[in-house]
């Protein structure tokens, strides 16, 4: 091995570094890794997440509703003055138990946590929903976001 082989020119060194950088980027992108530093997104679905740091209040009109008895929560689409929110409510049976009276066109005010799914789509996980037409407030989650239908606490339907 002679000195010419060992000592690389500045251009060659830069070229090698560029290649190494590119390879590192490709490896980072292609190797499956944890969803975040904290772990992996995996397992059977549980109740949608609720982040107290992202709680907001919005008011709007019900554009669409999807009541689901099992296999997932019921949802509605809320049209506000400047945005459309996909609002996650509760299982259909719990809404029936609460005697929830919601119809497309109703004006609602919703308190909930704005949370993304893994694809980046934003949802509003509702804690309290007030219907302006009936004046009834539905309490779906407690102060820390725990669903009231699994905590074995008495159902709460707050009448005006």
């Amino acid at each position, binding site marked *: 091995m002679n000195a010419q082989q060992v000592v690389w020119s500045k251009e060659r060194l830069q070229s090698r570094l560029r290649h190494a950088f590119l390879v590192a980027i490709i490896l980072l992108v292609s*190797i*499956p*890794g*944890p*969803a*975040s530093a*904290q*772990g*992996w*997104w*995996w*397992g*059977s*679905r*549980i*109740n*949608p*997440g*609720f*982040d*107290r740091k992202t709680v907001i209040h919005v008011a709007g009109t019900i554009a669409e509703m999807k009541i689901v*008895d*099992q*296999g*997932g*929560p019921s949802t509605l689409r809320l049209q506000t003055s400047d945005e459309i929110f996909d609002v*996650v409510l509760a*299982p259909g*049976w719990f809404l*029936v*138990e609460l005697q929830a009276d919601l119809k497309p066109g109703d004006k609602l005010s919703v308190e909930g946590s704005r*949370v*993304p*799914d*893994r694809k980046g*789509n*934003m*949802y509003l*996980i509702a804690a309290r929903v007030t219907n302006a037409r009936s004046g009834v407030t539905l309490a779906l989650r407690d102060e*820390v*976001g*725990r669903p009231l*239908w*699994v905590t074995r606490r008495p159902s709460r339907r707050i009448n005006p």
Partner: protein
Amino acid sequence: MRLKYSLLYILVASLMAPMLPGCSMLPGWNGKETEALRLQVQRLEARLQALELKPDQVSEAVAKARAAVAFVWGTYTFIDSTGRPLHHVLDEAGEPISDAQGVPLVDVTGTGLVAVTRYSATAFLVDGKGHLLTNRHVAEPWWEDESSAPLLAAGFRPVFIQLRAFFQERTDGVLIEVLRVDAEQDLALVRTVGWVPSAQPLNVPDHPPELREGQPVFLVGYPTGLDAVVARLEYKEQAELEKATGNNGYAKALLLAQRQQLRPSITGGFL
């Protein structure tokens, strides 16, 4: 009057004659037309036979099939190279973290419950020794599963927590074990452990007979898991079941089995 009926009979008979076998003898008919007509008559006969099946025969066949078809319930998790299973990661309030769709965040260092994937499926008895045929994706639910792929690639290993089958003749789930999976087809052989069902197995011939148009068929199974089973209940019963068992699918299946309500869906028709 009698002459009138005789003439009418002759007229009807002459109109029916081309529909009878052996009509190739009649002038103006070639072999192809005769063959086509023969096939048509055969199909009509098959349909007629199917329609003439006595209702009690169908009931008997359905009851036999139902007894041999099992509801499969499974849960599994992943463990790392040191044997640590995945646990739910909890937030400051002690609640499991999940995204807006309910997909949970899990890790071996999580402080919540062990994270599992739950699933249900169908299997059916093929002999009198407790052997059942099912799909490979039932015996190995992580097989070709998109959500499990990153964990497998990172060196995690899947382990069953529960794998049970419910039969009509029992009110609880019986343990089953995986014997073989097909390397190419989505097929697997499993077996009950410590108990053998008394139900008559379904006949799986080495050389199945050719299927014919008009043949009656019925499908028995749990293609939508417990959803279809629960949907058959009264709304009040559904709510009670949900409240009593919550997110625990095994508890739900157990309660349904105890109430003799864990019954497969049956749909049928003619080929």
